[in-house]
């Protein structure tokens, strides 16, 4: 065995860009990311009777409640509301769960980070991976509901990986940003829960943004990145349209910038984590 060739040399003075270095490290540790995703999926489903089915049943249940509430109580009898709300919930749940998991995993992993080296982004990256698996699974009930309620499924549905990628990039970037702060302050995770609730009601998840009165409508469109992400997620599935390219461009741009900023901030601070966690 030619050991000398395998020697990896670590030199703390060799300060290449930490952000680029982290990309290399996360690729090298890709098996760890796979194992984290596996652990998250296994531990979530192992001890429940219905197992994987919960991923699909959870948004279905919320969808049924909301459909009843909105169509009966508010009388807003929008055609295909069930499919509309479900497509929004599926995307929103992915976003909320992924960002949350990124924070929780990093804080939980603190005890490991103090003992051994691993790429610190592994927690957020694997949280995004777990979220993506769940998101793909929950497309099954979405398509079923569309079939049952008579919302046509068009070939544009095959465009769905693009908005999914944008959502994933946005969630990863934001998850990295917030977990950087959460390392320093324990109550950030709690505060984020409240922010998420408010954010959901400010996004066209359970309502269509057209029902909003005018001044609010354009403000939400302008300031809420989730508006673009939700719209471009819904377009190919629910509406059966090729999404408006300008909205796709905005959604992609927002996602890319968020990921870039999150990655830079997180990796810039990551060396301090072991001093803090």
């Amino acid at each position, binding site marked *: 065995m030619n*050991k000398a060739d*395998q*020697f*990896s*040399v*670590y*030199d*703390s*003075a060799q300060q290449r860009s930490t952000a680029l270095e982290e990309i290399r490290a996360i690729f*090298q*540790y890709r*098996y*760890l990311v*796979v*194992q*984290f995703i*596996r*652990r998250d999926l*296994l*531990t979530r489903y*192992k*001890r429940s009777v219905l197992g994987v089915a919960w991923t699909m049943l959870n948004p279905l249940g919320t969808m049924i409640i909301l459909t009843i509430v909105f169509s009966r109580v508010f009388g807003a009898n929008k055609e295909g509301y069930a499919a509309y709300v479900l497509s929004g919930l599926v995307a929103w749940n992915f976003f909320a769960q992924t960002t949350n998991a990124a924070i929780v995993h990093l804080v939980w992993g603190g*005890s*490991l*980070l*103090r*003992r*051994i*080296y*691993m790429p610190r982004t592994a927690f957020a990256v694997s949280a995004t991976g777990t979220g993506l698996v769940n998101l793909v699974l929950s497309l099954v009930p979405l398509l079923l509901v569309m079939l049952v309620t008579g919302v046509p499924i068009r070939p544009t549905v095959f465009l769905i990986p693009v908005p999914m990628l944008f959502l994933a990039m946005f969630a990863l970037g934001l998850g990295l940003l917030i977990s950087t*702060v959460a390392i*320093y*302050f*324990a*109550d*950030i995770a709690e*505060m984020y829960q409240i922010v998420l609730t408010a954010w959901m009601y400010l996004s066209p998840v359970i309502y269509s943004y057209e029902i909003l009165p005018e001044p609010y409508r354009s403000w939400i469109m302008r300031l809420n990145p989730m508006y673009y992400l939700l719209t471009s997620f819904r377009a190919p599935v629910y509406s059966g349209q090729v999404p408006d390219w300008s909205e796709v461009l905005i959604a992609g741009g927002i996602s890319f910038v968020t990921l870039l900023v999150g990655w830079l901030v997180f990796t810039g601070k990551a*060396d301090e984590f*072991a*001093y803090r966690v």
Partner: protein
Amino acid sequence: MNLHTAFSVSEEEIKDQPQQIAIRLEGVGVCYRVASERIATFKEYAIRLLQGKIMHRDFWALRSVSLTISTGEMIGIIGQNGAGKSTMLKLVARVLRPTEGRVVVRGKVAPLLEFGAGFHPDLTGRENVFLNGALLGFTREEMEEKFTRIVDFAELWDFIDVPMRNYSSGMWARLGFAVATDVEPDILLVDEVLSVGDESFQRKSFARMQEFRDRGATILFVSHSMDMIEAMCHRAAWINHGSLEAIGNADEVIQEYRRSQTS
């Protein structure tokens, strides 16, 4: 006493080692920023910030430490509690980046961490072995190759597909130890872990350490047991209040350290 003979090193053995540098610290310092009061929540921080009452104190856990360790060397690290011994291991393990100075490490580093720190109780032994291996930076192929050996060593074939919540603490430790020591590292960091566990467990871990040494691994060994360091290490480094007080022949450094403790 038989420990003594097992680990005592002849002079020729040391000379035969290729004098390649495995670890080099150059004027290394680690500075913790300690808030005079611990501020753990953002709410508190915001209040303090408004009151203008955030005060930090710099605490140097290590300062101006320079030393080189050759490949295949086994070096003991001694000093009082809080002197900075563990901080030094963390620098070598890449867990901490030095505030000042430079750390160069050649080869794969394995910390003999508290066994089974990364295990998840809901996963089976098999699943945990692969998860823990990934934490140590191994690929799937590497872990598949190691798996049989690990379970053989832990003697846990009957329970390997049982969730680890059903393991006794002894079984848990055995599996953790088997994974942690099947890594064939170039550099092994041992931080006092051998003092835990029963006698047979300690004997087994000594045997493993000896194996590592014979294979040519570099070992950094932190311990409060001077007898153990005297028996096992060629050299010792004494760290006192964050700086390197003495380094050299193990016997001499230990004598010096003992003198300082009694006076």
